[in-house]
């Protein structure tokens, strides 16, 4: 004990020793810590999508050949995109639903471009776990609400591609797109 007390007194008298070493320790460990984090960032970030994956991020779709009641599958960001030409009956069905009863409340108008109510463009990716719902291909099961039906876990979407039944939490996602002419859209 005696020597320790003397040591501290001596250190205080000199203004260095114990406290100076503490400072060096904290500074060195902090510096190494910041350096470690700086190295960690590229190691984690390398797993994000690379430039070539990001480059394939827009898609053009020609609408002219799609008949009313028909739908096609296009590819957007290597995922399926549903482009559907709604019939008047399907629009009426979608409009007849009381929006407040929906799991993800949206009207058909909110999901299409103004004045283009016949064209429903959504991702073909079920919002549950990412399967491709049926209903865009010829003769596929459209489920009990006449829109899309996901075979994986039984989610059913209506004619506005809104979730009506099953485990999916959200409506099929409407990607960002714009009309480049009356019969063509650019997605992305």
């Amino acid at each position: 004990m005696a020597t320790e007390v003397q040591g501290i007194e001596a250190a205080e008298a000199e203004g260095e020793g114990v406290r100076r070493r503490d400072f060096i320790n904290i500074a060195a460990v902090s510096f190494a810590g910041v350096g470690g984090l700086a190295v960690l960032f590229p190691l984690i970030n390398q797993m994000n999508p690379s430039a070539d994956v990001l480059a394939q991020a827009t898609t053009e779709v020609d609408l002219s050949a799609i008949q009313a009641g028909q739908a096609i599958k296009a590819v957007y960001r290597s995922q399926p995109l549903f482009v559907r030409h709604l019939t008047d009956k399907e629009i009426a069905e979608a409009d007849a639903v009381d929006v407040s009863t929906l799991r993800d409340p949206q009207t058909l108008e909110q999901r299409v471009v103004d004045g283009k109510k016949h064209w429903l463009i959504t991702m073909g990716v079920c919002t549950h776990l990412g399967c491709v719902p049926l209903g865009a291909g010829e003769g596929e099961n459209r489920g009990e609400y006449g829109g899309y039906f996901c075979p994986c876990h039984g989610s059913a979407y209506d004619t506005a591609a809104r979730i009506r039944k099953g485990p999916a939490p959200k409506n099929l996602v409407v990607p960002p797109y714009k009309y480049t002419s009356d019969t063509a859209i650019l997605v992305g």
Partner: protein
Amino acid sequence: MSFPWAEHYTPKNPLMKWVDEKLPLPRLVYNAVGAGYPVPRNLNFFWNFGVLAGLALTIQLVTGIILAMHYAANAGIAFDSVEHIMRDVNAGWLLRYAHANGASIFFIVVYIHIFRGLYFGSYKAPREMVWLLGVVIFLLMMATAFMGYVLPWGQMSFWGAQVITGLFAAIPVVGEPIQTWLLGGFAPGNAALNRFFSLHYLLPFVIAGVIILHIWALHIPGSSNPTGVEVKGPQDTVPFHPYYTAKDGFGAGVFMIVFALLVFFGPNMLGHPDNYIAANPMSTPAHIVPEWYFWPFYAILRAFTMDLTIPFTGIVLVPAKLLGVLAMFASILLLFFLPWIDTSPVRSGKYRPLFRKFFILLIVDVLILGYCGGAPAEEPYVMISQLAAAYYFAHFLIILPLIASFERPDPLPGSITEAVLAKSGLTVDEAKPVAAAAE
């Protein structure tokens, strides 16, 4: 550590003496799985499955390293390279079938090993750490098996990757960026395939490392036994070698017969035919199922079809998708708490009449979950999964603690030796002159 009466390693050969002084590795092996490790004398055949799991891992490592010499981890050619292994590589079909069925038999063995631990209370003090490390190994196995199933890049591979990484997208706010980060793209692609291959090669070695910790932790208190009564003296144990090396050798023989039957007579019995169709990102198979060993957990995932809401307001607290994901992870993670959930001081189910009944119900429940997980997402399977999932959680969170406080256990034997001798109608005192006469 060991019991004081454990045999000591005494190399007689001068070369082995020289090695022992420089690097006591043979000594380590002798004390771990040789004559230097005293083991309860009454272990039954359920105690074979730890060694068998190690054998299964070895088969996976050897066949896997060889398969990696012929496989190409590129989304463009992965599927074809697997067909190349099957058709062109010498004995390639054998190696691939051994690896694919090796995964199945690894899980069969590990599930029996886990249920052995559940029945005989192997998770209880002082072996909690053994159990915790075992659950870690189980989680690593599941991750490894999942990533391995993606590598052939068939339809089930692709959509399995989509669904499983989609689990992470259920996390609020950060979920979708996490999924994109895991996949390295917006859907499974070349980036995902490459990283899964890298990790599928790495994780088995991590598993091997954790197995060493698992065995290390086991050897501190020593192996448990069917009576659950701790070792009290030298008469309760036999050396691991030759007694249990012989018994495990017999077990390994039976294991290899079953394995060979699978590989040679039913190599695709446990697989799904859709995985022989090349991955197609534009079309989901009509019925996505994971490999059979994930079915019980898949059933729990799918059991949640309703949001958790505040009653009468319609405000969603937790969406159904997130509930399913949380329940699936919780069903495994709750095993980490098992040593503290089951507070009964009696280890072995042999002396717990009430526990034994509910243990059988749990097995039936898990089998029902497994059946529903492999069935399509329709009624009545959804309803049955919901009931079975509820029972699974009830077993661990309600029934086990209740049994512990209400049950009156059967009388325990005074020692392992007493339990063994009772089988021949002898008491310890009666047996002594017999033993003396034999000497």
